[in-house]
């Protein structure tokens, strides 16, 4: 029988009302692996670690405003993605130009594995593809997480899939 695990709601309540460190640590351990996984797909290891901490600090400071409209994890991922956009936009690495057809052409004899192909996408497109196709978020949820229109999420996903497909197949037609 599993030991009793307090809900996110209960842990947040304890943290907000009493500054309960044990409650915070439980939340941290419960949700960090997912947050860190997303950050590692978008940032290098050192950047991911920095953003992870900054995200938790922002979450802790702002959790009183969390109204429970979404799952806590979704809210936390949203905070992390906001910070990622800030970091990468400041370095010109979030919004890649809308890729021209020629930019997505596969290189002959250089088919990539899926991880390499996904990592090759500009960060914004990569985030959409990971959130939708890897984590299973809907376009409405992706749009909220990334602060874009739902149509933008669909469009970027289409482009991302097309590019990854091209790099995977090395120009061969997909059956």
């Amino acid at each position, binding site marked *: 029988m599993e030991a009793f695990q307090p809900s996110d709601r209960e842990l947040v309540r304890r943290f907000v009302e009493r500054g309960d460190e044990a409650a915070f640590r439980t939340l941290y*351990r419960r949700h960090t692996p997912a947050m*860190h996984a997303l950050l590692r*797909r978008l940032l290098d290891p050192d950047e991911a670690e920095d953003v*992870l901490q900054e995200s938790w600090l922002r979450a802790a400071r702002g959790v009183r405003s969390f109204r429970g409209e979404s799952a806590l994890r979704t809210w936390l991922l949203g905070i992390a993605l906001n910070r990622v956009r800030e970091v990468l936009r400041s370095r010109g690495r979030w919004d890649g130009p809308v890729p021209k057809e020629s930019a997505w052409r596969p290189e002959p004899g250089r088919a990539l594995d899926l991880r390499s192909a996904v990592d090759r996408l500009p960060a914004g497109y990569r985030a959409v593809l990971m959130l939708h196709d890897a*984590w299973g978020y809907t376009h409405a949820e992706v749009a909220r997480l990334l602060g874009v229109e739902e149509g933008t999420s669909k469009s970027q996903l289409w482009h991302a*899939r097309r590019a990854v497909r091209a790099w995977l197949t090395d120009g061969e037609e997909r059956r």
Partner: protein
Amino acid sequence: MTEPWNAEEKDALRALAAEEPAPFGAEEATVAALRREGLLRRPRARVVLAAAAGLALFASGALVQQRAGFLSAPPDGRPRFLLLLYADGSAAVASKEPTGTRIREYRAWAEHLSEAGHLVEAEKLAPAAYSLGGPAEPEAGDDVLSGFFLIAASDLAEAKILASRSPHLRHGGRVVVRPVERTSNSR
């Protein structure tokens, strides 16, 4: 609608989304930052008598007892592991380090376990042992169980890493790691 990914590609995508544990030290750094901002209050946890468990292990007989209070890790569902500290009962092994240095080493290790939220309980065992069934007393030269630490860790691998940092190993002792079996009464 045509599926964008075949089965193998879906597996590869799921692998990309696999959870990643926090970087080493990240949790403590975050907690420390929140404490500085006054957003956290330490739990009113039991004070555990630690460090003394490690200090009676020196075969030289220098049974230095030092009582020190450390905060116990709160129950949070993590697996528990018992670290059993054995020393050579023949008294032939004795660390060359000064006693004060050894005390500081054990205390630092216990402090780290506590500060990092791993330490649940620790006790020094008195030398006397009363056996019901089997040999009445350990044979001379056998390992003597002289203390234990009960810790919480994410998994066995982490528990072993924590145990490997015990100064007890450096001073010729042995540390046995035993997972605690979860039952309906487990905390």
